[in-house]
């Protein structure tokens, strides 16, 4: 009989040979010393190697047991803790967002290109030449005039309009409430006035971009109130304690607080309360304006005067609703 191959002999060694094959190979081994030695040497080799292993002391296993168990438990605790912590943080952030939402810090509308970002605190009305309060302000000749663009404005009824082009660009350092009355040209504005500023012409935009992103306007119906220029004036309530005025005062106080915290546009002087309404290039009120309007009357969005594009309106608080309701009848400054 020929010697079985190495694989068969190893299977015999491993006890994996089938009965019939086992008998056959066993008979061969009785006769073949070479195959017998091969198996013996392999067995010795493997047994020596297997028996040579030195198992570490039990203490090490016990130490590892504790280590593994603690690690597994720690991971389990984290699996519970992390989602819980994430949920708590999410709730806190949500609450903070809700609380912060009514107080946006900046207004970014006004310019058609959306470039003129300016803090509402620095927007004032004033420095308006008397000429600009005429029904036709084309050809305004002012030292501070930065505009050469065509400006049109109309005064109909109680609406007064003038262009931002007539407004002197502010120095940033002087717009922090340091302007004195002497620094501003005193003007007389009718008791009930809606002042409307508009930017017209691309040339003006470019010039405005050149000078500053901060635009300073000032407006006071009461000429003695110019000291508020530079920062939004604090709210002054109406003196007469009529029922309407009490409501007005309450609203004004709200706006005053709102302005202090968020810079939402509002002007007040003397006995009148004025608020600023800022409309973007699409004729939509900016976020601060929308917030004010929300507080004034419901459904204002149904009467959005789309004609007020790139426009800042300064209107008496009491007339806002009327302005919106009759917006189609109010001539407005437009750009295009």
């Amino acid at each position, binding site marked *: 009989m020929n010697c079985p191959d190495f694989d068969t002999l190893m*299977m015999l060694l491993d006890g994996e040979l089938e009965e019939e094959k086992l008998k056959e190979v066993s008979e061969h081994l009785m006769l073949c010393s070479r195959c017998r030695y091969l198996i013996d040497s392999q067995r*010795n080799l493997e047994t020596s190697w297997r028996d040579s*292993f030195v*198992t570490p002391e039990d203490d090490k296993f016990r130490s590892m047991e504790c280590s593994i*168990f603690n690690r*597994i438990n720690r991971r389990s605790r984290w699996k519970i803790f992390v989602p819980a912590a994430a949920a708590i943080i999410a709730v806190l952030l949500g609450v903070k967002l809700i609380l912060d939402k009514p107080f946006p810090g900046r207004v970014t509308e006004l310019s058609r290109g959306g470039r003129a970002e300016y803090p509402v605190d620095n927007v004032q009305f004033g420095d308006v030449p008397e000429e600009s309060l005429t029904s036709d302000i084309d050809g305004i000749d002012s030292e501070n005039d930065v505009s050469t663009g065509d400006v049109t404005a109309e005064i109909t009824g109680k609406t007064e309009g003038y262009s931002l082009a007539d407004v002197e660009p502010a120095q940033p350092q002087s717009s922090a409430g340091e302007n004195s009355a002497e620094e501003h040209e005193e003007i007389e504005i009718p008791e009930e006035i809606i002042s409307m500023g508009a930017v017209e012409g691309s040339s003006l935009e470019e010039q405005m971009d050149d000078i500053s992103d901060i635009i300073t306007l000032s407006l006071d119906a009461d000429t003695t109130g110019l000291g508020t220029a530079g920062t939004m004036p604090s709210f002054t309530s109406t003196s007469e304690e009529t029922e309407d005025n009490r409501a007005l005062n309450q609203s004004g106080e709200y706006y005053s607080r709102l302005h202090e915290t968020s810079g939402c546009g509002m002007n007040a002087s003397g006995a009148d309360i004025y608020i600023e309404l800022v409309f973007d290039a699409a004729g939509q009120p900016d976020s601060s304006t929308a917030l004010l309007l929300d507080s004034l009357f419901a459904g204002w969005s149904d009467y959005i005067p789309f004609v007020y594009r790139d426009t800042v309106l300064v209107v008496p608080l009491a007339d806002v609703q009327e302005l919106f309701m009759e917006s189609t009848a109010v001539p407005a400054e437009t750009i295009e």
Partner: protein
Amino acid sequence: MLLGVLLSMAGENENPDIQLLRKAKNGDRDAFGELFRKYEKRVFRVARRMCGSDDEAWDITQDAFIRAMQAMHRYDTQYRFFTWIYRITTNLAINYAKKKMRRREVHFCEAYSAEGQQAIEDNVADRAAGEQLLGAISKAVDKLTPALKAVFVLRIDQQLSYSEIAESLDIAMGTVMSRLNRARTKIREELGSMLGEWE
């Protein structure tokens, strides 16, 4: 489907290891201790045989038990637990060895080859010296590829049957046999004439 679920449940009920595993996973310290003590030495031994040092073996042993806990949901209860933990251990050891080989790829082979050959040649002078021969065998085993070594370790050191090795490594029986014979052949080739007297 229902039959499979029932069989699975029956297998789980008959398998005390999986019950220990589940209890341990839920924080039962005693259950974990019992399970760990049952397999700790075998797992360590496989790890130590597969890798080159005690430190690596401890790391692999620890990782093997942690992974067994984490991957408990993947454990197929129709198989024996020890084959599963062996599979985890050998896979960890193989991955560990591959990483190590990549790190030392340039210098490892030459140095080890020369060293191993020298050890074998040295041992030729004194074939009766068991320790030296053992050293040569160990070095020859270490030179096996991880796949061959895993089969060799499970068969020779753990004395698993071919079917148990196939189950542990998730390979076919034929693959087990071919790998085992290749491993043995390579070891004998490494030892060379040191085995002459046995033959």
